[in-house]
């Protein structure tokens, strides 16, 4: 048996995403095993709950490395916990594939780190490009106060400067806020052309619905945090027309994407979201790497991952020298209660950072 | 008023107000070194408040309190205690988690506890325990030394309160109804103890409603009524003062009789 580790928030505030991530990873493992596993052996996913908290992630990662002796690991968790775990995997020389945590320091931790998603800054820049593409100028920036939101805002502002957009006002709100009355009133009085608001579906749902209810009708741009059917459920009619920059394109022609979406539906019984797709991808990437090394971990696996290219539901991936991927950002728009393709953003603006010169 | 520069304690024109209520109204008196002064007056006259103003538990709204010529104004409680005051309260408040002896020893350790640093450097409590035992004996409850206050009856606690105040080795001891809750024999004994302590050089202000004992041990009386000082002087003379008699002793005057409530109202229904 080949063991791969998986740290994921199953309890605590991020449990909903954690559940989705776990389903994605489990699907990847099941599919691999159905096809005969790796080097004739079955793949086993060792799952630990990290509560999305750095403090809990450290013992979890240590346990995976020391006790379970996993050959590689996948993060199905948020940035904070993933960062804390990263150091331990790096020290243990265990390749660690990160699915959707966006903190820049993760890949900087060392060469055993890999990330399959776009970093926050990159996605923020893509957001600014979308504004440009929509032909809008005056942006109200609403930022979720955590590492995710802050990274997005930084990227967005960087892009905005490049495109000559005007950020009329910038607001921040907390992870636990659900009532945005004051903020909405103020945004309304700012009278922007477009709103760029970061958040997770559980903050974005109420935010968008409250904006719309107050009569703010300008386009709203969200990002991968919105990417869940729950967002549409919460925001209801208000969700219609909201743009989302993400890594999953529901209308993709790619076979990998199509089969993933179908398989997920069949196995889990609900629609896959970005978190599920990313975790599936990360797990799959790791398994593909293992196939190349015949189940060996360590340096061999690291090199195999670094050298490989992977067909995944979120596009064709290859890692750069910092082990970040360069890929296009998908813009989805909500139409008739479903995520639909709007456009794809690509170009040099989306280049991930590469290894800092020492 | 005669000014006596050598007064140990001097209360000068003190007024205490609680919101709209004037509990003490422009009261002045002196306490001479070595004196045993009785502070008496009707319920709610302001006696306890007076002691509290002296110790700083309540702030005087106006006026000044001076100990050995130094003004105590604005001085926090603990400084006043360290300067030589000590208060035995009307409502007893022992520390319930520790024994009676430790209660007294804690007070006796004042030199050690003056600053946290000093307190941190010292561990032994032997000396203080010895003082504690002595004080408990003095007030007659040494037999209970190792028990916790929680289960003690009121009479014991009243005396514990006094032992604790004594353990501070005060120059001026303020006693608020130390005899309350004791039977006449015990009250008599404790009053004698108080007089004895006084003879050993501790100046004392005594609040008491037990007039028999007050008359027996006090050298001088100050009488408050409704926040005002209505009399002071030699006990017998004060007691004969008609103002004092009517406010405090309730001689059967005609007016008194007329005010007697109609007692039949309550209780009759059930009987």
């Amino acid at each position, binding site marked *: 048996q080949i063991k791969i580790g998986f740290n994921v928030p199953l309890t605590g505030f991020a449990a909903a995403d954690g559940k989705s991530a776990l389903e994605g990873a489990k699907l990847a493992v099941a599919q691999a095993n159905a096809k005969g596993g790796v080097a004739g052996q079955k793949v086993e996913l060792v799952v630990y709950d990290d509560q999305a908290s750095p403090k809990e992630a450290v013992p979890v990662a240590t346990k995976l490395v020391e006790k379970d002796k996993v050959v590689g690991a996948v993060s199905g968790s948020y940035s904070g916990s993933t960062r804390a775990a990263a150091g331990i995997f790096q020290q243990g020389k265990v390749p660690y594939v990160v699915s959707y945590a966006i903190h820049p320091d993760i890949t900087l931790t060392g060469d055993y780190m890999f990330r399959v998603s776009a970093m926050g800054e990159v996605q923020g820049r893509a957001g600014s490009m979308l504004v440009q593409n929509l032909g809008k100028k005056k942006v109200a920036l609403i930022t979720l106060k955590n590492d995710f939101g802050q990274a997005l805002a930084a990227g967005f502002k960087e892009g905005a400067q490049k495109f000559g957009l005007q950020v009329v006002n910038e607001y921040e709100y907390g992870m636990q806020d659900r009532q945005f009355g004051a903020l909405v009133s103020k945004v309304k009085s700012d009278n922007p052309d477009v709103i760029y608001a970061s958040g997770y579906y559980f903050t974005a749902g109420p935010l968008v619905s409250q904006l719309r209810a107050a009569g703010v009708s300008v386009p709203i741009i969200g990002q991968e945090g919105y990417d869940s059917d729950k967002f549409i459920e919460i925001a209801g009619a208000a969700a219609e027309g909201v743009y989302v920059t993400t890594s999953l394109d529901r209308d993709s022609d790619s076979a990998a994407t199509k089969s993933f979406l179908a398989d997920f539906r069949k196995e889990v019984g609900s629609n896959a979201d970005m978190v599920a797709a990313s975790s599936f991808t990360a797990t799959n990437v790791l398994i593909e790497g293992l196939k190349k090394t015949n189940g060996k971990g360590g340096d061999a696996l690291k090199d195999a991952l670094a050298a490989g290219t992977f067909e995944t539901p979120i596009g064709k991936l290859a890692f750069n020298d910092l082990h970040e991927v360069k890929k296009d950002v998908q813009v989805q728009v909500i139409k008739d209660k479903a995520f639909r393709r709007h456009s794809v953003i690509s170009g040099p603006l989306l280049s991930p950072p590469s290894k800092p010169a020492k | 008023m005669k000014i006596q520069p050598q007064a140990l304690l001097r209360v000068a024109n003190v007024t205490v107000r*609680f919101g709209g*209520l004037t509990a003490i109204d422009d009261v002045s008196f002196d306490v001479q070194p070595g004196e045993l002064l009785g502070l008496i*007056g*009707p*319920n*709610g*006259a302001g*006696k*306890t*408040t007076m002691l509290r103003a002296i110790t700083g538990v309540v702030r005087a709204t106006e006026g000044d309190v001076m100990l050995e010529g130094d003004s105590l104004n604005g001085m926090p409680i603990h400084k006043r205690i360290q300067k030589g005051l000590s208060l035995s309260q*009307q*409502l007893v408040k022992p520390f319930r988690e520790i024994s009676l002896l430790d209660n007294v020893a804690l007070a006796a350790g004042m030199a050690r506890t003056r600053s946290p640093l000093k307190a941190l450097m010292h561990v032994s409590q032997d000396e203080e325990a010895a003082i504690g035992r002595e004080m408990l004996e003095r007030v007659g409850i040494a037999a209970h030394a190792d028990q916790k206050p929680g*289960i*003690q*009856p*009121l*009479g*014991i606690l009243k005396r514990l309160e006094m032992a604790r105040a004594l353990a501070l080795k005060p120059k001026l001891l303020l006693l608020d*109804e130390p005899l*309350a*809750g*004791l*039977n*006449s*024999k*015990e*009250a*008599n004994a404790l009053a004698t103890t108080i007089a004895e302590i006084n003879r050993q050089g501790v100046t004392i202000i005594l609040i008491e*409603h037990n*007039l028999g004992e007050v008359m027996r041990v006090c050298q001088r009386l100050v009488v408050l009524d409704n926040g005002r000082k209505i009399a002071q002087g030699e006990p017998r003379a004060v007691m004969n003062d008609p103002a004092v008699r009517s*406010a*405090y*002793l*309730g001689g059967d005057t005609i007016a008194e009789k007329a*005010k*007697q*409530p*109609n*007692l*039949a*109202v*309550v*209780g*009759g*229904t*059930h*009987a």
Partner: protein
Amino acid sequence: MLELHHLSCGYGAFEAVHDLSLTLRPGTITGLIGTNGAGKSSTLMCVAGHVALKAGAIMFDGQDISTLTPEQRVRRGIAISPEGRRLFKDLSVEDNLRVGGLIQPASHFKQDRDYVLGLFPRLGERLDSLAGNLSGGEQQMLAIGRALMTRPKLIMIDELSLGLMPKVIDLCYRALQQLRQDGMTILLVEQNTDRVLAFADDVCVLESGRTVWQGKASDALNDTSLTAAYLGLH
């Protein structure tokens, strides 16, 4: 009226009162005396239902009330002015009296309050003060007044004269005599032994939780061995 049959009570394993039998005749004053720690307060609190009954029975008006809750006992007509006063410190004087009158119809309140204020005019000047801010004596008055507000058949007063000035003590005793005439039964705990012996009909002397003497107050005064040994009279 109130009959204690071989009553023992205490705290946890500790027995504060042993085998106390006492009968209060209706419309009389009974004094309960004894040194500190004798068990007087414990007896009162046991009758009120707050100290655990370990053996024996409490009969009131011919019925066994041993198992009733304190709340049921006061409705039967037993009121207490407890040791330590135990006022509702965060309530005003008037509200304390109001609580006293809770078991009576609201319409009685004004009348009963005025009676108490007539007894203790000092309280009338402090109606809006919080009970916790009252002076010691004022608190004692309020504790007694609050008990009276229940219109009890039996009132138990612990340390009646504690903290009261001589004039008010006189008043209280006179009021109690009047209440007795009106048919109320009174159980008094008092350190002021001379006073009790002069006023009470019956006395019971406790010592370390045991009865050492019981009988008519007038007889107690004549029993010199008793007065010398237990009552601290000279």
